[in-house]
């Protein structure tokens, strides 16, 4: 088994809220590995901590009010990113680990051309001249499939459509051929048809450039199509980890089951959508014991008291007592 490119161990990112309403423990002990060349999907509803996790890796969390707790470990190629001095961290950002954000319109600077913004990382890390950097920018625009790249390179973000802007963001991230690409909900802000194109693009680029991708999304469909392995997050924790096929064939955690049941299927007979009852709890007051227990159809006393660790064998683990005691699983009433 090869060494993981990125190792995250027990990551805790907390936020101080105003007026002493307590600390929001947005990420509360998250661990996962990312191997070279693979696509790891991180799935979860909004509020589960997946975006904060991704921002923590590159230490892009605003320092007040957020902070990464000591005891967290983020290792990239053996170096602890959390202990790096700022110049060393900057050398990795945009260069070895790059990030694509969710909202391409606000994430692009409106006063610089698209070409300037793509070239910036190359100028910073590879010290390319303006001319060489511009040529590289055109190269990248071609790579991401933007029509008329030689013309578009001098356009401003507001002159491009949503899908094109996201391509530009991807080009911007890839210009230094990073080993890891963190894509935070890259398609959420786009139309469905454009979504498919962007995902295809990411797949192609990954194959061509041989990089690892950390794909963060709330959309199970995206994960099913793109990811090799999946991490499911809930309430600031990892609740299930598995290779994609294993996850979809047999989810272990009731939350994952609930997520899948909530997705309408075009090939199944029409039935009522099964929503997961209840709401995501506030990060300032996670429930005791297993954090999912208030919404879980199978919960029993133990779940309210003791927080389960990740249980299971090999690559498929879940944070649920049912893994040890499958008999406790209640039979669900059949729906039509």
């Amino acid at each position, binding site marked *: 088994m090869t060494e993981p490119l990125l190792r995250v161990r027990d990551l805790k990112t907390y936020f101080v809220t105003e007026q002493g309403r307590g600390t929001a423990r947005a990420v509360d002990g998250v661990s996962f590995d990312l191997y070279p060349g693979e696509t790891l999907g991180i799935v979860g509803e909004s509020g589960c901590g997946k975006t904060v996790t991704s921002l923590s890796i590159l230490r*892009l969390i605003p320092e007040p009010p957020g902070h990464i707790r000591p005891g967290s470990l983020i290792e990239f190629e053996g170096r602890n990113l959390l202990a790096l001095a700022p110049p060393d961290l*900057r050398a990795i950002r*945009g260069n070895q680990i790059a990030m694509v954000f969710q909202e391409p319109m606000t994430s*692009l600077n*409106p*006063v610089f051309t698209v070409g300037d913004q793509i070239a910036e990382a190359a100028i910073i890390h590879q010290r390319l001249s303006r001319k060489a950097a511009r040529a590289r920018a055109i190269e990248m625009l071609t790579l991401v499939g933007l029509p008329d790249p030689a013309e578009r390179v001098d356009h401003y973000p507001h*002159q491009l459509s949503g899908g094109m802007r996201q391509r530009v963001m991807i080009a911007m991230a890839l210009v230094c051929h990073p080993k890891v690409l963190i894509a935070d909900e890259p398609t959420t802000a786009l139309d469905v048809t454009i979504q498919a194109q962007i995902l295809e693009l990411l797949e192609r680029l990954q194959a061509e450039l041989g990089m690892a991708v950390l794909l963060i999304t709330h959309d199970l469909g995206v994960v099913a199509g793109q990811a090799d392995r999946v991490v499911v997050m809930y309430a600031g924790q990892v609740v299930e980890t598995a290779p994609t096929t294993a996850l979809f064939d047999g989810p272990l955690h009731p939350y994952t089951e609930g997520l899948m049941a909530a997705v309408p299927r075009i090939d199944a007979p029409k039935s009522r959508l099964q929503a997961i009852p209840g709401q995501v709890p506030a990060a300032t007051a996670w429930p005791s014991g297993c954090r999912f227990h208030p919404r879980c159809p199978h919960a029993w006393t133990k779940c309210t008291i003791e927080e389960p660790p990740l249980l299971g064998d090999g690559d498929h683990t879940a944070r649920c007592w049912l893994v040890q005691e499958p008999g406790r699983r209640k039979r669900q009433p059949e729906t039509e």
Partner: protein
Amino acid sequence: MTAWLVRRVAASVAIVFAVITLTFFLMAVAPGEELLGPDERQVDPQVRAELRRQFGLDEGLLVRYVKYLRQLAHGNLGVSFALHRPVADALAEAIPNTLLLAGAALFIDFLLGLALGVYQALRVHRLPDVVLGNVTLFLYSVPTFWLGLILLLVFGAWLRWFPVAGMSDPILCPNVSSLYCTMDRLWHLALPALTLGFVGAAGTARFQRAAMLEVAAQDYIRTARAKGASERRVVLRHQLRNALLSFITLFGLAFPFLLTGAVLIETIFAWPGMGRLATDAILRRDFPVVNAAVLLASTLVVGGSLLADVLLAAADPRLRVRETA
């Protein structure tokens, strides 16, 4: 783009025209006698009637208005009642002085204000920011003329670092522009320009601080960091460039402030500029001068705002190019 520019300039011209008309009619319909100063000497009615005829004040209102417009078109601003010389001449003497004062004040205002605002934003909520924030709050809240008086007292009378009145040494430098005289003029210019400049800078600093902080919260700043840019690059290239856009709008607002300030500061420092000319004329009911002064002031204000709009359109790519993908 050019269509917009044409429309904008036309609107500005229309506004100035409206101002001219408004002031003319206001002056013409007001009660009280023209030609009579505050002492209201009893002038022989026959002499008064003769003077009125001379100045064309006995003709109908609309006739006077049309005549006035025609005169303006020829660059003739009329003859001052009180000074007995063409208004244009009096103004031509006074305007450069006001422009000098306003220009120097503007320079200090923007330079200092920009630097302070950016510095404060970079040290936000820490001691330098808090201290400077209170200082700018104070300077922004004081009456400009009172500050002028205090500075005059401290630096002019007590410390004798600067002269207390006038534009230059009347004995040694009558219209001689040698190095000594230039220095002398700068020396005289210092206090009034600093007064106006400091108050303006306080406002600019507050505004610029807010603009920088607003930009700092934007997503694209996070993107710049994610690319591995150093803090210096993030601030100077990304933050500042965007914050400067809102700074340009300040440019348009600076003109009314400077003109108002000029009126008061010129009075205190005995600076022979447009403001003083206007105040004297108004108290003497010297209509042609008042008309011309108001016209000029409004033109400057409108011109300033037009300039700011043009600069903004040139600097902000979102306003510049109109095609979409």
